[in-house]
């Protein structure tokens, strides 16, 4: 049987960082990913990565405060301290590995402004920072010699007596099912954006790791906290980075008015994302938009700046919306972008199952709380990827492999897959179910939500679940059967969708991204706490955890 001390699931930034760290600590490490590492969704990050560098006169405590305020005081402050105080080192490490960060006039790393922060501390590579970081991380992965299982799709986590034993995976290229034994497993499987339609997220972002952990009994925390990004394209939902506003772009309504004046007179367009998205939605609802959109205006920035710093998003505007932002404002609207919630971990990435870790977007260490600041996610992936890799390598030293019956495990997985392949064609399609789920989510668990809308989503998901249990898979073959993979992913998405909706219904206040029109105020007395969803007999069972506050007391949030 294949066997590794540390098995990292997911080869985005968090996963590769974790694998490199674990391997450097002497653990026999492997990484497994359903797509080639550089195809991972981290490549989509455009804007940049935050760090407070002392020699720029910045202070990590200021970064921490901005993050905490951005989180609407739901982030755990011990975790935020870890992230912000490690940021400088993590950033410089990436530069040493070869990232081609833009520079200032002195040849040092240059910064740009990003939302919700009082000073410019976002480091960037043009407007393809994520890709630049991801490719460099892949270079380091090659250098490390870590074993990489590419285009292998993890289908379940194996546990024996409450301890992790390994994972089951489908080798997509051959259709073969494998068992991999592991002393520790680190989930770095990214977000779950495709539960929403549209979303800025890539098609592979389907919440697999969250669902696998959830089904193994691990809690998912703050799942109601879903970020709607203020500047996404209508239709496809593809993102135009906050970098545009960071470089000085304006938001305007149909009359050309900069409406952010009303909502955030100081920070204007660079208020935190939840605030800006609500402002846009309010304007659109009041009829001040055009076709459900307001406008991102870059025309005053000039061609030279746009070409140097925003060229990729300009291309996206041209390719996907037919608008050249050098010349015209681009119609945009809030769109689903990121999930703050995820697999509950401690500050080392450890979950409630010994040996099971999580890092990156699939995890919730809790650094983002109710709302993530732009450019804090890449930082999160790198800092906590590394920490979990280090910790897992350490953990391995003291434990033995847990034995399990390989043949039986493979047979069990084969049965599950064959059951799906053998279903009679009832005319239904997983694509249609996913679309219905996504549209219900965007309609009902939106920028603004209330009890009625969320309940409707929950009912929809229950009906869709029934359809899912019958849905046929058209492709009956083994080699590169993506039809089967998508069907499996849809199952994961439905699991995660439930946790999002149930948690949103539970939080009867408005905090961060959970804007409840029926409970419009933040309510610290009753809701300054995390909601944890665990798999129950029927649907998610919810419980609470306190928020860790070190030195920043909750206060009113104004931008």
């Amino acid at each position, binding site marked *: 049987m294949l066997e590794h001390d540390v098995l990292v699931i997911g080869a985005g930034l968090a996963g590769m960082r974790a694998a490199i760290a674990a391997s450097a600590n002497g653990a026999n490490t492997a990484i497994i990913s359903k797509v080639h590492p550089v*195809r991972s*969704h981290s490549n*989509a990050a455009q804007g940049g990565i935050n760090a407070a560098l002392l020699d720029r006169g910045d202070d990590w405590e200021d970064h921490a405060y901005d993050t905490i305020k951005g989180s609407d005081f739901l982030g755990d402050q011990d975790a935020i301290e870890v992230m912000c105080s490690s940021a400088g080192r993590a950033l410089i490490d990436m530069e040493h590995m070869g990232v*081609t960060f833009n520079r200032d006039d002195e040849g040092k790393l240059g910064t740009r402004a990003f939302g919700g922060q009082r000073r410019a501390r976002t480091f960037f590579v043009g407007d393809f920072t994520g890709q630049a970081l991801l490719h460099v991380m892949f270079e380091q992965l090659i250098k490390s010699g870590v074993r990489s299982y590419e285009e292998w799709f993890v289908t379940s986590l194996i546990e024996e007596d409450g301890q992790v034993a390994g994972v089951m995976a489908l080798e997509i290229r051959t259709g073969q099912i494998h068992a991999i034994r592991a002393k520790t497993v680190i989930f770095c499987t990214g977000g779950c954006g495709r539960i929403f339609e549209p979303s800025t997220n890539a098609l592979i972002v389907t919440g697999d790791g969250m669902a696998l952990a959830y089904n193994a009994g691990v809690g998912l925390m703050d799942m109601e906290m879903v970020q709607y990004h203020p500047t996404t394209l209508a239709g*496809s939902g593809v993102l135009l980075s906050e970098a545009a506003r960071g470089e000085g772009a304006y938001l305007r309504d149909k009359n050309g008015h900069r409406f952010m004046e009303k909502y955030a007179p100081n920070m204007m367009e660079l208020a935190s994302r939840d605030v800006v998205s609500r402002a846009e939605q309010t304007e659109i609802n009041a009829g001040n938009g055009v076709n459900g959109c307001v406008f991102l205006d870059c025309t005053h920035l000039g061609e030279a700046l746009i070409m140097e710093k925003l060229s990729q998003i300009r291309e996206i505007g041209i390719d996907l919306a037919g608008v050249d932002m050098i010349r015209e404002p681009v119609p945009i609207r809030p769109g689903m972008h990121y999930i703050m919630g995820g697999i509950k971990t401690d500050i080392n990435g450890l979950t409630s199952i010994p040996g099971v870790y999580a890092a990156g977007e699939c995890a919730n260490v809790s650094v983002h709380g109710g709302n993530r600041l732009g450019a804090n996610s890449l930082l999160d992936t790198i800092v906590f990827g590394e920490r979990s890799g280090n910790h897992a390598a350490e953990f391995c030293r003291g434990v033995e492999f847990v034995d399990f019956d390989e043949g039986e495990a493979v047979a069990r997985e084969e049965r599950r897959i064959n059951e799906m392949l053998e279903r009679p064609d009832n005319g239904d399609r997983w694509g249609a179910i996913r679309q219905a789920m996504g549209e219900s989510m965007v309609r009902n668990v939106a920028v603004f939500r209330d009890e009625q809308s969320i309940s409707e989503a929950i009912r929809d998901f229950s009906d869709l679940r029934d359809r899912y249990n019958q849905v046929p898979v058209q492709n009956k073959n083994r080699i590169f059967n993506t039809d089967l993979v998508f069907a499996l992913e849809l199952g994961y998405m439905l699991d995660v969708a439930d946790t999002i909706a149930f948690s949103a219904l539970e939080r009867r206040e408005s905090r961060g991204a959970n804007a409840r029109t029926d409970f419009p105020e933040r309510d610290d007395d009753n809701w300054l706490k995390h909601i944890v969803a665990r798999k129950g007999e029927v649907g998610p069972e919810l419980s609470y955890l306190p928020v860790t506050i070190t030195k920043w007391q909750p206060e009113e949030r104004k931008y």
Partner: protein
Amino acid sequence: MDVTIKIKRFDPEADQPHSYWEDFSVSVPDNATVLDALIKIREEIDGTLTLRCSCRSAICGSCAVRINGHAGLACKTSLSRAIDEDNCVTVEPAGVMKVIKDLTVDFDLFWDKIREVEPYLQPQGAEPEGEYIASNESMLHLSGVTACIMCGACVSDCTVLEVDPTFLGPAALAKAYRFTADPRDGDREGVSRDRLRNLSEATGMWDCTRCNECVQACPKGVAPMDRIMALREQAVSAGFTNNNGARHTSAFTESVGHSGRLDELRLPIKSVGGITNIGAMLSYAPVGWRALTHGKMPPIRHKNVENVENVRRLFRKLEPDLAGPQIGRNSPFG
């Protein structure tokens, strides 16, 4: 918009696996991309249609295919511009790499070549405490290369790789250039001597024929051929001239140079494989020769052998005529 997508399909599990064309009619919004149409087919018409795609925004590098015969990203190609007068567009798997199923190809060849160039920064000397100090211009220049999303479109359409799979190819050489041009890589002057030495060997930078296909195919403006020419420049100025490629090229330059007859030659050259400039023709020769004389031409490529024969014949015919009066005007790297 109603369109017909003609897709070249391949099912490895069929009784007798073979490629075949299948037409799909779909109705899509006017601003749809080729990828939108493919996804629609996959989700609504035929779940067995297999292709890689993820980001839908030209950043993940998954969806390179041949559209109307040329490599490109399905997600970056607007349908309205790709269709012909009958509202048809053809989609085939990328070239050079072996087809796994339908539009999915085996990328091992691609990644093996990337690995071959030791694709990670190799600075000499101690790391600074903070960041390396480097000019913004140097980083912007590199970013033009690191913008590569490893989609393989250039590899798909590279005329040398098609006949000589040992060639490092456009993507790997561009990747190599990303290091040789990095002031942080190599010795204190930022010269990556070891890399340049290795890349000057056979199968490296000198095997490119300058056919320009990779420049046209690249969806990210990486212009691999230009990077390869810049590599040649770096290698020669670092003193790596004692290799076949450099010798060949300078010999050609000395003996030929560009002449006023260039344009007249374009037609026959195009007909031997779409090679549109004389430089390409010239440097095609060494590779064509090697492929032929070392038996590297795969037997299934009968068509190519013919083409290469043509190239060879033409080349022999043309060579004496081309020795022009402009010796020394061109740099040895063309």
